[in-house]
């Protein structure tokens, strides 16, 4: 099979969680791909599976969850089939992750310098003490005072500083892919702007790809060059940022963009009617059909495939499958 993304290619990824209420089908065939150096924004609302996708890529899905089907091809190897031991050599070395709450993802009883050193020590197979010069360099890169921060404990740092430490830790091993799961959602806007600028600058300098998971369309517009929109465990639209904002094709993407308030916007906000479905009993066919203003009969029965409608613009919606068929016929 030909890969769509040279760095990362996820196809038909299905993840379920077994709960007392039944099986939660959190991911229902996610499609996602990235080239090296890409900046992909993964957007969607609560429960759409964006965080689960990132955890599945890192193979961090734990009981009662499991990856049921699908491929995650990273750098030519299928991570789903990799042994835990080999996965350990990928995780934190070739790809690393930054989480939403910086303070709860740092170890409160270890000095910051030691925590950053760990990831370098692991990738270079050296002792942690030997990494300290490099740790200092990394701290300088993320805009912190190395002498002070090296020997601090996480509680001595502010939220913005902790997130800088997390970024330093994530990038210390020079990964090919950095996954950032809502890295700025817990921060204030002025600090958020600082952190995004830092991520931007470092990614440019180090040449790593970034997968940015967020619910904020503003952050996506400013940071990412490609966007994947997810809804209820499915990939529904994938395009370049410019294209997606200018001409969203999937009704959900359109609705989402209409609902975002922005400074200087005078028209009334449009809301998407209905609510996000329960993933224990998701709607049949297209999971968006109960909320979709354009739903047709086929949408209720069959799940629309994720297909390329225009060059590099993929959509899972029957509204557009129809069009491409017409084009083929004609």
């Amino acid at each position: 099979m030909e890969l769509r993304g040279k760095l990362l290619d996820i196809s038909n990824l299905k993840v379920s969680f077994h709960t007392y209420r039944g099986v939660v089908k959190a991911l229902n065939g996610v499609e996602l791909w990235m080239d090296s150096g890409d900046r992909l924004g993964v957007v969607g609302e609560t429960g759409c599976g964006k965080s689960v996708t990132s955890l599945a890529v890192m193979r961090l899905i734990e009981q009662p969850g499991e990856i049921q089907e699908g491929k995650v091809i990273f750098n030519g190897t299928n991570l789903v089939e990799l042994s835990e031991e080999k996965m350990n050599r990928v995780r934190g070395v070739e790809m690393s992750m930054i989480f939403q709450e910086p303070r709860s993802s740092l170890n409160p009883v270890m000095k910051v310098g030691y925590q950053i050193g760990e990831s370098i020590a692991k990738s270079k197979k050296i002792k942690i003490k030997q990494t300290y010069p490099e740790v200092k360099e990394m701290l300088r890169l993320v805009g912190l005072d190395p002498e002070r921060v090296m020997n601090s404990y996480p509680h001595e740092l502010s939220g913005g500083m902790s997130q800088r430490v997390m970024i330093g830790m994530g990038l210390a091993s020079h990964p090919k892919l950095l996954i950032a799961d809502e890295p700025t959602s817990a921060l204030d806007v002025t600090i958020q702007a600082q952190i995004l600028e830092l991520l931007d600058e470092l990614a440019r300098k180090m040449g790593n790809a970034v997968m940015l998971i967020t619910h904020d369309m503003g952050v996506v517009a400013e940071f990412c060059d490609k966007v994947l929109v997810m809804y209820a465990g499915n990939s529904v639209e994938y395009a370049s940022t410019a294209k997606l904002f200018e001409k969203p094709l999937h009704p959900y993407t359109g609705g989402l963009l209409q609902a975002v308030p922005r400074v200087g916007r005078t028209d009334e906000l449009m809301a998407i009617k209905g609510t996000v479905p329960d993933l224990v009993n998701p709607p049949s066919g297209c999971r968006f059909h109960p909320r979709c203003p354009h739903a047709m009969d086929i949408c209720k029965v069959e799940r629309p495939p994720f297909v390329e409608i225009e060059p590099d613009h993929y959509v899972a919606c029957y509204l557009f499958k129809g069009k491409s068929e017409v084009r083929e016929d004609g």
Partner: protein
Amino acid sequence: MAETLIKIKNLKTYFPVKKSIFSKKLFVRAVDDVNMYIPTGSTFAVVGESGSGKTTLARTVLRLIEPTSGEIEFEGKDILGLKGRDLLEVRRNMQIVFQDPYNSLHPRKLIKNIIGEGMKIHFKITDVEIRDRIAAVLKEVGLIDDHMYRYAHEFSGGQRQRIAFARAMVLKPKFIVLDEPTSALDVSVQAMVLKMMKEIKVQENLTYMFITHNLSLVDYIADRVAVMYVGEVVEMGDKSTIFEHPSHPYTDLLMASNPVPDPKFVREKRLMKGEIPSSINPPSGCRFHNRCPFADERCEREAPELREIKPGHFVRCHYPL
């Protein structure tokens, strides 16, 4: 000029912090010398980052927290001296919707009792009347009357926020504080809730104090805006004035930091530095001077006053932009 519903004068709310028994007594100056007036029928937005004192300000206005000093007038009456029946009446007129609808509704009470409790206290009416009013208010916020026999956990976040709003509305208040009412909600749901609040405000001739950290929401809902930074109001004015001509460097920074959902938008680069200072030991002089690109030694030394640079436009800065 429109009538003023709420007038706040030199309001200070300090919280004591214990350092050690030997050190000087320290205070968190959560709200420090705030002056503002809220015109009847307007939506007054209070914008600020975490720790700026916006929530403390709102709670002090409702007397949920007692201020250290200052005056609060509601319809020309000083409410800080009120007691008993008079206070009860003012309380009915000033309601609040909290930020997190998952924590602000009692998990073991029926919606009927959550919404109805206030009416039992404030009105002398029968249970049947209470039920009718609950049914009416539920309909008004976009729910159905059957919902009153359910519990909070049976609702989604957006629906819960509608219930919290119904609880405030049902007492026929004149003033409602909305404390980040949509920050726990997804954007598509947020849009619906905001729209509902905006419509009901016009219908019922309400006055809102809308607390938020999101400038985009301010532009959508507010008439007047106060920007807070470390306990102080740094800029206040009509929405259009603030958005078109931000005069305080902090307001300007806040605007420039707000992510814009448009890939074609090119951000003006701002020199961004520093962190939000603590309100226990605020910086000397102007509290923003350590982050301000225009600060000089006067800003370090001398604290600026909030002054009116144009009618209705107040700025706390020595060198307004």
